[in-house]
């Protein structure tokens, strides 16, 4: 029986995070790639980089070949990198071939959300990271295995091949941690659960309660207070625990009916209330700290 406990000794007072976020992200925007802003909402902020990668993914990733070194982000240096999973939205399963025009499903909120989040993570924690850019890998990329934390969006349209599914299972069993974000509705959740079950047949998706250590690893978070930026479904948190044991580590953390990257992407634009954006950043910081220690 593991006797793990996680207690915060001293929290950051109030929400200095708010102030930090505003100041930092203003700076971040000035440095960001001139991404094509498609408006507030769920639209993918396609960039030249994203388009490049999306077009590459027009071919099914059936081998471990890297896409192209120049679009995968900064090289491995031992520090934490924000890693986004790229995938081809498929025709099979419950998905479809993308429900929106204008970009790949995996690239929603990319790259502004990633960069903004890295800036906040760098300022609020001791984690050594790079703020320059995130990395983009498919599950077939060997390089992914040098980054034990990864992030995937729009899993309702995720339709991995058998080979990819096998790699997902290997990644998670070895010690990888997958954050799942930006989807809503039971149909998309079912698609995600279906493919995770293919990857980890012996493990079940189950609810993550508010007393879980992941909500207390850096900030104290009350999950019920986290408001989704849009959509008509109530937010929910699911996860897959090692050995289906809630006292063991979370291998997959799922933000159902939510989109924290949406807040990250536009937190410096003033479209969303600062308090709500803060909660989204807090969730991300907690997930990363948790995954680096559990």
């Amino acid at each position: 029986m593991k006797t793990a406990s996680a207690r915060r000794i001293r929290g950051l007072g109030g929400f200095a995070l708010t102030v930090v976020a505003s100041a930092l992200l203003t700076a971040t925007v000035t440095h960001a790639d001139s991404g094509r802003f498609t408006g507030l909402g769920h639209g993918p902020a396609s960039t030249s980089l994203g388009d490049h990668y999306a077009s590459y993914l027009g071919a099914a990733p059936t081998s471990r070949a890297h896409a192209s070194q120049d679009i995968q982000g900064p090289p491995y240096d031992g520090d934490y990198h924000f890693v986004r999973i790229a995938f081809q939205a498929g025709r099979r399963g419950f998905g479809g071939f993308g429900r929106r025009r204008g970009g790949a499903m995996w690239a929603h909120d990319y790259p502004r959300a990633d960069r903004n989040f890295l800036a906040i993570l760098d300022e609020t924690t001791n984690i050594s990271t790079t703020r320059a850019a995130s990395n983009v890998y498919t599950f077939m990329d060997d390089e992914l295995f040098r980054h034990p934390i990864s992030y995937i969006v729009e899993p309702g349209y995720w339709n991995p091949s058998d080979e990819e599914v096998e790699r997902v299972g290997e990644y998670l069993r070895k010690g990888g941690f997958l954050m799942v974000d930006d989807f809503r509705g039971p149909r998309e959740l079912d698609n995600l659960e279906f493919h995770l079950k293919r990857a980890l047949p012996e493990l079940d998706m189950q609810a993550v309660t508010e007393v879980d250590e992941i909500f207390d690893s850096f900030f104290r978070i009350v999950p019920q207070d986290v408001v989704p930026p849009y959509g008509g479904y109530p937010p929910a948190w699911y996860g897959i625990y090692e050995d289906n044991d809630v006292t063991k580590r979370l291998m997959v953390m799922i933000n159902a009916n939510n989109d924290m990257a949406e807040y990250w992407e536009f937190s410096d634009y003033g479209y969303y209330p600062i308090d709500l954006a803060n909660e989204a950043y807090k969730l991300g910081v907690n997930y990363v700290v948790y995954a680096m220690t559990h």
Partner: protein
Amino acid sequence: MDALFEFLFTYRDIAFQQGDFAFAAPGSLRPLLGIAAVLAASAVATYTIARGKSSITDRIIMASLRVALLGLLVFCLMQPILRISTVVPQQNFVGVLIDDSRSMSLENEDGTQRRDFIEEAFTPATGSLFEGLSDRFVLRFFRFSDVADRIDGLGELTYDGTHTNVARALDAAREDLAGVPLAGLVMVSDGADNDDRPLTEALVPLQAAGVPVFTVGVGDEAVEPDIELGRVELPRAVLEGSTLMVDVVVTQYGFGQRTVPIVVSDETSILAEEVIALGPDGEPVVARIGFELDREGSRRIEFQIPTQSGERIEENNRRTAWVDVRGEREKILYYEGEPRFEVKFMRRAVEDDENLQLVVLQRTAESKFLRLSVSDSTELAFGFPTTREELYRYRALVLGSVEASFFTFDQLQMIADFVSVRGGGLLFIGGHSAFAEGGWIGTPVEEVLPVVLTEPQGTGPQGYFAEVRVEPTPAGLAHPAVQLDAESGAVTTRWDSLPPLTVVNPITRIRPGATTLLEGINTDGITTDRQVVLAFQRYGRGTSIALTPQDTWLWQMHADVPLEDQSHESFWQQMLRWLVDGVPEAVSVATDQERVEPGETVRLVATISDSTYLEVNDAIVTATVTSPSGVIDELPVDWTVEEDGEYVVEFRPREMGDYEIDLEAIRGDATLGIDQSVLHVARSDEEYFSSARRTSLLQRLADETGGRFYTSDNTTTLPEDISLSGAGVTLTEEHDLWDLPVIFLTMLLLMGAEWGFRRIRGLV
């Protein structure tokens, strides 16, 4: 040779060695010397004057022969004598010390036993030596093995002693015969002494008392053919689930270089089996055998080589040792200055190890900490320990990427003391804020580290970064911490299969006295300096280890590492177990020997410290000793005075089996601590090891005391030699030497030589 000597010189060589030479001619020797000079001068003058047809060379040779003859004559006129002190018959004692150990029952090459000589030589009335000795001396017999005591006859010999203690035997005989005139001691033994006590301690009193020791060596000098499983050393206590790497020394005679298996087993199962190639005759080979001990309790470990056909001694093919396998949960504090994956993967690697509790204090932001696997809500509530009591509760400390300036000076000193005073293990892991890059140069911790820190290199804003492929050094291949749970011989292959790691702390040198177990080869193909990856050194009472890579977790996570590969888990389990191995408790107890014979005295040694590991001299210490049959003895353990914190008591176990020892130390109203130990009481097979006759020891014994060494087939002169030793009550005898055959023959030789020379040269 001895007979020829005795024919020429009338007396045996020992008489000349022991005796004094003198001239017995009355009055002064000067007139005789004067006459000799005149005769010599006249002889020379005669040869000088009467030249004839001789050359000068002829005359010199003839004059020399004549002068030598005259000199020999004058020597005889001076009446040379030999003064010898001989013992007065039946007024002196001789102690006969007989080896009563098991090795005396071993067979010689001719099929007889070593003990047969005892019967043959010392049986009253018929024994070959008994008669000669008893005619001259009063005999006192002693037997010796583990102990030495006086016996009245050979019937009391059992040849069952499990040790041969020569020094103790000499002491006992000397003390027993202290009040009587002692002509000497006779020791009959194979010389296979297996006690640690220096022989010199027993020789000095004998030399001072002038007691010669005459040694008789029995048995063969080489036991052949035979295989002997020599030294095997195991730790007294290990943590449950630990892997031990044990060196086994094997020596053989007469079996060439054949291969034999070594089987390691405990009470219930075979733990390991290793096939080794034997070396040339008499040359020991060392086999390294690894096995895991996964069951708590006192374990009897047996190492055995199956008996080979024709072997002389079977008993020396096995060795037995005991290991106390402890099921305790050892607490290790891991302080990490920045969240990083080493924490996650190290925790995962040891989470199933019930004997390790890895308490993590993770600094997640400035002055913000995450505590993991703590025992209760108060543990580390105020961050890194600020008192020695708090820090010393842990048996090992792991420091991750944390800058030295985080700690106060007192905390830095405390970390150094944690190793040197408390005896804890310190593991320093590479990272952005570790080693020199973390400002550790010049701190009290720097000298604790096994590696040499140099000022950080200015290689750009990102600092130093290199990728290294890790491989074990020769020392590493033999170290249990880096075996990766691989089969013997496959360790190097396993290391070769692991992906490279990265380092941000360039470290290429270790301190004198430190050992490198792993080193890294830079994958850039340019850098030739090898990175020190894993090194350690003993520092004070503890051990410090440096592990310089920042991402050993790649050995678990990397795409090239198969999912089922356990290298990372094995590495960290062994690493952390090594870190806590041998870390002392504040209160500890141990016996001076792990196995004793029934009735043998055991020394129980306890070390008592307080919670800051300062030695305590005023504690009340009690040892509760429970015998195998359940008899309980409470023994007060007293401070030795000589050593701070050391308490000692002696006792003699009587029963065969395991004695349980529970020790408690109390100071005032507070209990300082408790500890347990186990003493094994069993018969020893030590007599069957190194059991060939040790002539060198017996020879030295005789030489240093003025005695002589004999083999069992050459003891006829022993009684007379003792008579001539000069020890005891003696008479001084004077023996003329002028009539020695050697003098007469020399005279004839000189005269004949001169005559022959003249004939050859035509000078007659």
